[in-house]
């Protein structure tokens, strides 16, 4: 896998070691007054940025932590955060 991911604990490793955890969408919304549409947006719908996105990864074959990275979805390379 061409992708490498930098785990905050273990350092830069081959992408094979990780599991993708989706876009960074923020904390779970409150259940009170939540419409089915909003819930569906939170759980299933994605922004699918063509460019740099913040996303979750799990170091499955490593330390077992969840963390976020920025990745350029066009080049499939880790990137610096953009404003």
């Amino acid at each position, binding site marked *: 896998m061409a*992708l*490498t991911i930098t785990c905050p604990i273990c350092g830069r490793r*081959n992408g094979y070691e990780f599991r993708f955890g989706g876009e960074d969408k923020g904390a779970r919304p409150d*259940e009170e007054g939540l419409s089915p549409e909003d819930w569906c947006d939170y759980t*299933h719908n994605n922004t699918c940025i063509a460019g740099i996105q913040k996303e979750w990864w*799990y170091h499955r074959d490593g330390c077992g932590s969840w963390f976020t990275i920025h990745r350029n979805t066009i080049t499939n*390379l880790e990137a610096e955060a953009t404003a």
Partner: protein
Amino acid sequence: MNRLNRLPTLRVNPSEKLTFNYIGSSCQGVKGDTVATALYANDVRIFGRSLKYHRPRGLYSMDGECSNCCVEIDGIPNVRAETTLLRNGMNIRPQNVRKSPDTDIMGFMDKMDWAMPAGFYYRCMHKPAKLWPFFLKQIRKAAGLGRISPDFHMKGRYDEIYPNADVCVIGGGAAGMTAALTAAGQGLRVILLESRPWLGGFFDYRTAEYTPSQEGISRTLCERARELSEQLENAPNVRTFVHTAMIGAYSNNLITAFQTGNKSDAFDERYMEIRAKSVVVATGCIERPLLFDNNDRPGVMQVGCAHRLAQTYGLLPGENAVFSVGHDLGLEAVLDLYDMGVSVACVADVREDGQDPHLLEKLTERKIPFMRGWTAHTAHGSKTLEKVTLSTLSGAQHREFDCDTLVASAGLTPVTGPLTLAQAKLAYDNHTGFFLPEKLPEKMYAAGRMLGLQSPLSIETSGKLAGLSAAADCGTSLEHEIKQTREELRNLAGPVRGSKFVTAPVRGQKSFICFDEDTTVKNIDQAIQAGFDAPELIKRFTAAGTGPGQGGIPGHNLPLLVSQWHTDSGLAVQPTTVRPPLVPTYLATYAGAKHDMCKRTPAYESQKKAGGVMQRAGVWKRARRFSDDIRCQEEVENVRSNVGILDASTLGKFRIFGPDALRALERVYVGDMSKVSEAKIRYSAMCNEDGCLLDDGVVVRRGENDYYFTTSTGRAGQTVEWIRYHARYENWDFSIVNLTDAFGVINLAGPNARKVLEKLTDADVSNAAFPFAGYREFAIRDTIPVRVMRLGFVGELSFELHVPSSFMQTLWELIEDAGKPLGIRNFGLEAQNLLRMEKGHVIIGSESEQRTTLHDLGLGFLWYRDKPQAKTVGAVALRQTEHQEGRLKLIGFRMEDASSRSPKDGSVIVDSTIRGYVCSARHSFALNEPIGMALAEPQLADTDTRLEIFEDSGDDRLYAKVVPMPFYDPEGEKLRI
């Protein structure tokens, strides 16, 4: 055939013989031979027949750039004879021939070219549509290279490695070796890849003089190559992989390759994924074929092929040769082959000028006729070459020469595949006639002959420059050295002018631009007449370059040829795209070692000794049953009436502790976890965000903020990830430990279970002291610590003992001994399956699938709705789907006819349409009739509804009726004794 065995360039050992089989006759080769050179040594000239016209084809290049020399070896089709080393006992057969390559009965196809213009498949056979299936069959029969038996089993050892390096150098010629040595000299870790079985590239087989060093020691190119290769061998931080073909380049400088192993390696082929900080590409050149009529006739071969055949393998290509060349390497080959005893009738050179004067001098010394501005025009000979017509470039003059070998080449062409794969931008360079890298990706450099360099010193210096640049990318400060080397290179000979000549002045009906697909120059003309203007489109229409050679033969000629039609349009010459794998690779190599790894529980051996049929279940190997009876009647009845033991060690087991452990549990479990107590187990479930059942298990509290819980076997691997995922936005303080492998689990079940346990412990295990759903910790025989749960999965009095894995074997034997007087027996997964079914208990994945919610299974009561602040995973969906209509519901059924057999798992419930399906059904010994569970539409869920069951084999329907669950002991009294 006699070998020249005293050459300094030789790479074979003529005294070490190898025996192989070719179409039924035993032949001999020597150690170091490729399959192609061994066949050539045995006077094989026609290696196979071409795809479309069944024309005879022979040895043409030496690096597998076309399918001419694809053969079948030991049942494996399409093996490239030129790059495969000969081994003792190989069984070799030609391809695409009926009978033998010399007498192929399909040879008449060669006369049919008028009927098969470019793109004729697309244009001729689609009308009328109803005939297409017929044509399809005929085309399929005729098309394709190689045949493989459908039950062929691929033998061999395959492996994979994932090495890291600072610098990866692709290509082990002079430039690549220098680059590797330079980078290694900076203390960096270097990986060097070379596709041939040895290093040396263009230097390896040549005895021409290497430009003398300052000390004035004269050396040949071959000696220089071996000197560099020796230096590499002694460089401690260089890993050299020979016989290793680079096949792909990806972002982040990831290079993939495959390596062919030799006898002493532990693999036959292995896949490599190399991660480097920077990359040097020094893949050199191959030859650009010269196009003329019958340029594919066996006996016609490229310069490097003839030259290496002699110098590397000690085989003369023929007795009487004619040369038609376009670069100085061709003239060098003339001289060497002449000196070895080949008679040279004539040398044609498409260049009017620019030849190395020293080489011309030597030609004159030997009185070899040399003709500037001449080219091969037509090759003659019915099967192999007999005669050649040469002509001037314009075609005004002709001359004929008898010969058995025509060494022909238009010029060189750089091997740019690796650069293209890495997304480098290439542009046509008018001076060299090459596609040169215009913009290279970050941290990638090109060096050597592929840049058009020819002088040995220039080639090595460009390698040094690339090596330094690549080293600088790894953090070494080398600005000064780089500047100096760049200056050095500028003062040396630059890229040489390249010939752009492509095709002799012929109509091109039998001039083959692509051997693999039998594409002729005329086909290209036809494509252009049909309106295709870009090489990429012409490639698709004529199939040129789409064969196993990956465009090695037509790759450069096609754009040059097409550009001749565009002289007025000002369009740039465009290359066609290459794609990975650059070199054909076995799927077996990609598949790798196929290690089948599984886990065994600590009681594995005991169960196996007891006659357990051990089968794969997920990552584990578990006991399915303990007799030949697939219904497991005795195992089941023994649990119902006496006592049995089951190894349940595969259950997921976890400790979660810390101030926020309860919060984490509340997040993932649908139940009210605040009620979990120390003396009582709590059964609960985990759902996904859609409210569908993921997992079920029990939770107990072992101390303050300290919990122990179990998961189903299948979820054990993902549970830590799941819980941490759903806590990722919270700053909760908790720890979770996977104890799955640290604890074994024994389920002691049956009305006599307590009698067995009492013998082993002083703890009070009476129903009053340790009731159903209780949790206790005590010691067995005062020593073995156990965590014991009173559960009811199989529907009888049962104790589930969790014990440290190291004690598991001992405890297992203690229980067996204590139960022996009572007649204790093992029971396996199949028996457990029936026992739990009789109780109406679901198994995830059996009574549920991805779309099955807690409500569908009738387990909605597990969901505690009054904890919105916990933001429980699945709670929103459970609320939204609580009253949703039309969902499949879990139902129990009995057969209408109690004496009928039970339907197969997965059978569908039908009326005029499909209404549901059977999850599992078995013959119940307790009820003495078949029972089952199904997911069916809610209209069918009422008791006594008649179900019509269709099995995928047979026309008979089975009939059942819906009954309430559980089937056995509905009051649950047996659990509570």
